[in-house]
């Protein structure tokens, strides 16, 4: 059986990444010499560089120095209070963003071609519901427009927002409560509301969070609870109830499948509190019964025929509710009155679903599952049980706290394991391109902004999505309710690798570029090849990379000339400038662009 990372580290002194090991060469910005990788793994970057690579989408110029100056703990606390961070530059970019919308005339609407601002982001469900209903008649480009605007806003925030931890957590929760945003028009139209729910609770209280998600129009449609109603004999629709247990709360490690007798399931104790040891299929069915009648005001012909029953908002429709007592996560134990485990509220049957949320959100299994996922997100594919347990303790102690999630995340970020782990995660495709765009201070252009190349029709966002989607990571684009995988074994594959290698070029240079990057103007091109690579290494990584990678990049930039001199044209055997550079001044720009792209293609740039 394979070694886990920890057991391997524990058994091999030569490979330890502990900061005290003699074999580890420490790299700091004050000592930006590339590491001599004689017989060891590369040095572990300083904590401020780890922070920018794992609790942000990579460093922008100055970020690493800033964290070093203010101190890591202060930075964590700053990031955990995103509303106190001035994000006006990002806000301005969101306001200035334009996303083209273009369609031909159809029945009931005229042709349109405009570069429109992100006008749906702050709209309410009832304001957006006409798009879902197709009233007045409109093309699908209009109906699905709101979710496209959220995709654009997410890219802009990833690259420019100073609330980087908040953006990472928003992405984490979007994947945890995954919805494919263009699944249908009801979801596509109301997706800005769903994004605001995620953002409202990303650092908040999980119990409030899971219920807000469960009541949302988008989740109601994605997992079909919108049509979950009493049915003679057969189930209503168990899709949502099943994924609530398996993906949103307890996780499949706590799935015990079928049991004939509840006595046989057993209980788990945590700090004196008793919980069902896991969930069984009967829990799924009974929870789905509790949620019968939880639906959306969508003009269903069984609802009253008035406008306020077709506004896209949540409501409980008692006619659809399955009566009777239900057992969910019931505990059979001598100290528990089993009669009290039944869920039934005839006076207010909506409370049965609320009781299910109480049960799953307070369960120890939920704490373990989600804390494990958070550690996997921020530390390692295979985080230590010790750190997970510490996070679980904070989670359980703060189940009623309004800032429960912030407290848990703080515990994880300030753990020894966070500070002492490097390279136990890789960048997924979007993390890779976002970190590149941040490091090179890319400018994302509003659609309609002309660029030099006549082949570029200035439809920049469509170009960005069509070029980045084939990497496999798509904002709100994962079809299954699991969300994007968060382990390297999925992402380390030839397709994702090839797509990631090409993306910096395809986004910024092909056809004049959909994203504007000017490396040459940021570079002192009269300094030596060595110094130029060192400059960009500090920008792109924030720490010193491996010597073989560094040397290869220097040699590439020199193209056979001295590495201690500025880049020169390639020379022939008589020392005369020759192809492909000759005397064409643009060779410097192309050489630099190619070198920085290679830096982005290097194995070093993949590690987090």
């Amino acid at each position, binding site marked *: *059986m*394979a*070694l*886990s990372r920890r057991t*391997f580290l524990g058994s091999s002194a*030569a490979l330890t990444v502990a900061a005290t090991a003699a074999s580890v060469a420490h790299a700091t910005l004050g000592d930006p010499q590339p590491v001599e*990788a*004689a*017989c060891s*793994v590369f040095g572990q970057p300083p904590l401020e560089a780890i922070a920018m690579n794992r609790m942000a989408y990579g460093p922008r110029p100055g970020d690493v120095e800033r964290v070093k100056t203010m101190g890591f703990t202060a930075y964590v606390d700053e990031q955990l209070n995103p509303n106190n961070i001035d994000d006006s530059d990002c806000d301005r970019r969101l306001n200035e963003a334009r996303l083209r919308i273009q369609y031909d005339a159809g029945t009931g609407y005229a042709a349109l071609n405009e570069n429109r601002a992100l006008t749906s982001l702050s709209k309410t469900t009832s304001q957006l519901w006409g798009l879902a209903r197709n009233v007045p008649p409109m093309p699908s480009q209009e109906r699905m427009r709101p979710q496209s605007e959220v995709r654009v806003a997410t890219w802009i925030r990833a690259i420019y927002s100073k609330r980087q931890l908040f953006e990472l957590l928003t992405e984490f929760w979007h994947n945890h409560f995954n919805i494919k945003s263009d699944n249908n028009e009801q979801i596509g139209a109301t997706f800005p509301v769903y994004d605001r729910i995620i953002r409202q609770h990303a650092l908040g209280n999980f119990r409030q969070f899971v219920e807000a998600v469960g009541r949302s129009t988008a989740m109601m449609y994605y*997992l079909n609870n919108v*049509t979950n*109603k009493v049915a003679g*004999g*057969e*189930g*209503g*629709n168990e*899709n949502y109830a*099943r994924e609530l247990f398996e993906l949103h709360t307890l996780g*499949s490690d706590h*799935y015990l499948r079928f049991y004939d007798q509840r006595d046989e399931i057993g209980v788990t104790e945590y700090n004196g509190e008793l919980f069902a040891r896991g969930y069984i*299929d009967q829990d799924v069915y009974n929870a789905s019964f509790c949620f019968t009648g939880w639906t959306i005001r969508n003009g269903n012909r069984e609802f009253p025929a008035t406008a306020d029953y077709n506004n896209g908002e949540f409501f409980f429709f008692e006619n659809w509710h399955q009566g009777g007592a239900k057992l969910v996560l019931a505990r059979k134990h001598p100290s528990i009155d089993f009669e009290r485990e039944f869920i039934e509220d005839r006076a207010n049957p909506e409370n049965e679903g609320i009781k299910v949320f109480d049960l799953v959100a307070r369960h120890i299994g939920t704490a373990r599952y989600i804390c494990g996922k958070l550690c996997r997100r921020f530390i390692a594919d295979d985080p230590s049980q010790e750190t997970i347990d510490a996070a679980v303790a904070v989670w359980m102690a703060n189940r009623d706290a309004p800032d429960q999630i912030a407290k848990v995340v703080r515990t994880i970020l300030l753990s020894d394991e966070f500070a002492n782990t*490097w390279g*136990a995660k*890789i960048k997924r495709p979007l993390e890779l391109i976002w970190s590149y765009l941040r490091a090179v201070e890319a400018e994302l252009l509003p659609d309609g902004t002309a660029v030099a190349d006549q082949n570029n029709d200035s439809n920049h966002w469509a170009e960005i999505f069509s070029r980045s989607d*084939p990497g*496999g990571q798509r904002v709100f684009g994962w*079809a*299954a309710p*699991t969300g994007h995988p968060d382990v*390297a*074994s*999925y*992402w*380390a*594959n*030839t*397709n994702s690798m*090839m797509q990631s*290698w090409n993306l910096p*070029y*395809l986004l910024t240079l092909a056809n004049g570029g959909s994203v504007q990057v000017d490396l040459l103007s940021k570079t002192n091109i009269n300094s030596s090849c060595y110094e130029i690579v060192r400059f960009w290494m500090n920008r792109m990584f924030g720490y010193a990379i*491996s010597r*073989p990678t560094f040397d290869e990049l220097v040699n*590439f930039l020199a193209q056979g000339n001295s590495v201690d001199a500025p880049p020169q044209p*390639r020379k022939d055997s008589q020392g005369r400038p*020759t*192809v*492909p*550079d000759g005397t064409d001044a643009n060779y410097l720009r*192309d*050489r630099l*662009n190619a070198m920085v*792209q*290679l830096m982005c*293609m290097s*194995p070093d740039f*993949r*590690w987090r």
Partner: protein
Amino acid sequence: MDISRRQFLMGCSAAIAAMAGGRLTQLAFADQAELTAGTDEIFVMVFLRGGMDGLSLLAPVSDAIYQAKRRRLVLPTTGDFSSLPFNPNNPTYPGAGYFVLNQKASPLNELYSQGQLAFIHACGLDNSTRSHFDAMDYIERGTPGNKLTPNGWIARHLNSVGANSGVLPVLSTNTAAPTSLLGTSAPAAVGSPRSFAINGPARYNRREPANTRYPWADQAMLKSLERLYPASGKSNIEKVGTRTIETIKTIQAASVGNYTPSNGAVYPAGSFGSALSSIAQTVKLELGLRVATVDLGGWDTHENQGTTDAFGYFSRKIDELARGLHAFYTDMLAYHEKLTVVVMSEFGRRLGANASEGTDHGHGNVMMVLGGNVNGGKCYGSWPGLLDLDQDQDLKITTDYRVVLSEVITRRLGNNKLGYIFPGMTAANYTPLGIVSGADPGPIDWDPEPDLARLNSDQPDAEYRLFLPMLSNC
């Protein structure tokens, strides 16, 4: 010979050779010991993700229980969307008239009547899970009940016949490789072969051969990239990078261009059709392709399943599946004798329809095997009926999916190491059904841990948990 080993042995610098030390010897040894176990047949795994409703593909339409439980989802037997008559040609099944085939499966019916396609009903994962993701994990890792097995069953098959040789032995047409391929260095996830290349500033990326107009066309970036990802790299990122470069060069050398399918085959629009066409194109490049995987998702039909008219959701999914498989099989005419395609899903769906005109997660399902050596035109296994249900609600399983795959693995792919490929399976639960023709490659090896040392010397760490680069012989 494996291109990576050849390049490593021939191209590595003295410095790398010195650093690699003992590993070089080990590689050379592995090279000499390379086996030619297995056959050069092509295996294509089509996975229908989400739980395909086999009871709406091959439906027990005259069964009163099916009629009562499926209510408004019952396949029509009259009118424009009348289903196709179907004969299981198996005395252990109910006779003609009991089953019908979905009308949109007409292209499959053609292959069935030509004896190229076999169905196995009431088949699947013999584990009670109703979780998509657990079920897929169990199936693809080949270990029902255990989702921690560090590698996939196809990977173990490849490892145990040394089939990572060949220039491009494995192709995954998805954006990433599926779990069944976890744990082998061989898979190349390639969306489309013709676009698998490096894009960069042309001045330093122009491709060989150089000519008078572009005398500098030396692919400087690709060469630099090869040095950034030396064959001696041991981390998973370096290994995958090396594999990516090899794949880029292979496809470049094969001059992969636009593709015109053979025999007038027309693939359906969409990712499934283009994935199958990529596989056909790659097979015809003769790069030694042995295994290809392709996914078709969207089968989780909890709501408005749409089985009763041609425009319903499920009808359109079956249409895409059936036309895709038919086009692929037509396109691959010249390769039928060495081609086997298996189609399966993680589970079937609940017998009883739910309140949303859909079906929730169920159990037993239909599996399909297609190929030139398939004893088609027949249903295999046995039909358990609808009176005696799994958990009192779902179609029972009478054939373990591993039995179907085992027959293909032994009799078509020439690998007898079933104990290693499907740990936990024994002679007692393997009775071949005769789905494919061919003989077993000697006695079945039921040892879960056969001596594969010679074969696995070039494998990456079974679990990709170590990402930092390291050298093993300091």
